[in-house]
């Protein structure tokens, strides 16, 4: 079920370089939270630190506290692998597994974790997940075909199906539509609106109209100069951010005066 995420005093590093500084924010369950800001401001890095994907990179580390419904995600005896099972992620570019069929891609989270499941249950899960990603009707007759045969937009929805098949509580989306055409983008946005009933969704986007369309809350990241860490400048309801932001920098960015 959708869970709430509380982040306090989060600092994110690449080696000695501090990429993101002092983020404190709470993300509400059953809603879409959008993160916007100019390139290189650390939004994606921040997103990746929520499910502990950041530390996969060599030299990368995180300081501060991230908790999900009170459970400390960076606690000393927490396995990052378990965190990622609870917090799914969809990437900028669709990345289905090229050696697997459509069916196997959706089942990948179950199979790769060697969880035993009856064939009929797995079939049902695959169908449910593909329906949840609005892809079922398009691929139902070719579940055993390679995933690489799908279009870009279909591949991205397949990746969403793959992510929700492991039934996470939170879904992180890193510019999920930036590599897609407008129609596929619309499909993804509709999907987000449906999915927020069941998941907490955090989306990074460069597209401000998209943020305005799909999200309830919006956070604006910025950095004062190149080489400086990115900071969360403002976090407010989407409506307020786009109509009457508290910060001058937010207004400048929204109105296209920089970035």
């Amino acid at each position, binding site marked *: 079920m959708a869970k709430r995420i509380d982040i306090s005093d989060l600092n994110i590093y690449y080696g000695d370089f501090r990429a993101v500084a002092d983020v404190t924010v709470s993300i509400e369950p059953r809603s879409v939270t959008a993160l916007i800001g100019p390139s290189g401001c650390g939004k994606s890095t921040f997103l990746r630190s929520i*499910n502990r*994907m950041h530390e*996969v990179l*060599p030299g990368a580390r995180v300081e501060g506290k991230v908790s999900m419904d009170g459970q400390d995600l960076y606690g000393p005896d927490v396995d990052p*692998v*378990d*965190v*990622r*099972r*609870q917090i*799914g*992620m969809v*990437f900028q*570019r*669709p*990345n*289905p*597994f*090229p*050696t697997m069929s459509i069916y196997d891609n959706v089942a*990948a*989270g179950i*199979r*790769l*974790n*060697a969880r035993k499941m009856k064939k009929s249950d797995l079939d049902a899960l695959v169908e449910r997940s593909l329906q949840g990603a609005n892809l079922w009707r398009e691929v139902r007759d070719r579940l055993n075909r*390679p*995933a*690489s045969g799908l279009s870009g937009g279909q*591949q991205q929805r397949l*990746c969403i199906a*793959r*992510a929700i098949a*492991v039934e996470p509580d939170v879904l992180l989306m890193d510019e999920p539509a930036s590599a897609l055409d407008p129609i596929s983008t619309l499909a993804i946005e509709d999907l987000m609106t449906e999915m927020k009933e069941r998941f907490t969704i955090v989306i990074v986007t460069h597209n401000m109209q998209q943020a305005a369309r799909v999200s309830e809350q919006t956070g604006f990241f910025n950095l004062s100069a190149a080489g400086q860490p990115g900071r969360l400048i403002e976090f407010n309801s989407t409506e307020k951010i786009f109509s009457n932001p508290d910060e001058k920098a937010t207004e400048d960015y929204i109105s296209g005066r920089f970035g």
Partner: protein
Amino acid sequence: MSQTTGTLLSPPPVTGGSRRKGRLPRWAAWAVFGTALVLVAGIGLPAGLALALVVLFTGVLGTLALYVLSRVTENRRTATDRLVTCVVVGAFALAMVPLLSLVYEVVSRGIGRLDGEFFNSSLVGVIGEGGGAYHAIFGTLIITGLTALISVPIGLLTAIYLVEYGSGRLKKVITFLVDVMTGIPSIVAGLFAYALFAIFFGPGVRLGIAGAVALSVLMTPVFVRSAEEVLKLVPNELREAAYALGVPKWRTVVKIVLPTAVAGLGTGVTLAVARVIGETAPLLVTVGITNATNLNPFDGRMATLPVYAFYQLTQPGVPPEFAIDRAWTAALLLIALVMALNVVARLISRFFAPTTGR
């Protein structure tokens, strides 16, 4: 250098396709070389010049003539350019001479004994005519198979370490030393295996497995290199996709990275095997030779195809011609094996490559 810049700034730029006065037509080069050939052949062949020398002299004469012609009708820079072109093309042609002559010699001398008896009899009791390399063929297959069995797991794990886990100093050291190891002389690898096994079995030891160990020293670094390249080609996005599903790293490597890279790995194994299957020196000092069939790599001498070829040629006995024929057939078989492995490697990489998502 200063001269170059000087000439560069001099007026006529020559790269443009535009036709200008003083530009040789396209067919000029062919005409020059044709004339040279007619001249050299006309004078040389009656005088008993070898065919290879005719070709050689034609190349030299044609190149010089073209250079002079270009100097006269075009300009110095174009002439130099043409000269270099001739030299570079000539260098490639020259490199083909050994390849073609080698293949021709081996095939024409080896084809005679490429018969059934060669494949199904050993040298037991053979004096003079007949006999075969049954024992050596199987010896080579067994020892090479053992080599692959040792090298592939170690090499693959090492490559996985270097690509997926390695960091810092140890990774750098291993990468560097794997490179250095590819340069170990094969005979030294043989001496190493001999010394290693002599500790346990006493001096003078000859064992098939010792040969396999020696060949592994040669094959492993080759395979590590190619496996490393192939694993690096697996897009990072796939690893991240798996991590994001809560898949532990080792399962990601085993279930996602390796299957994605399987074609490249197959190619790498095949090429690494091709690299060692013709090695003679290490087997000469570790496995020795025998006339009888011994298929047990843990019990004494074995015959292998390269060593067999070596001894048949260098110690043919009396009368020598039969053994020498067998030596050439063994050499032909070796080349055929190596070429076949190379072709297989290319086929693997062409047909089994995964269709990476676009």
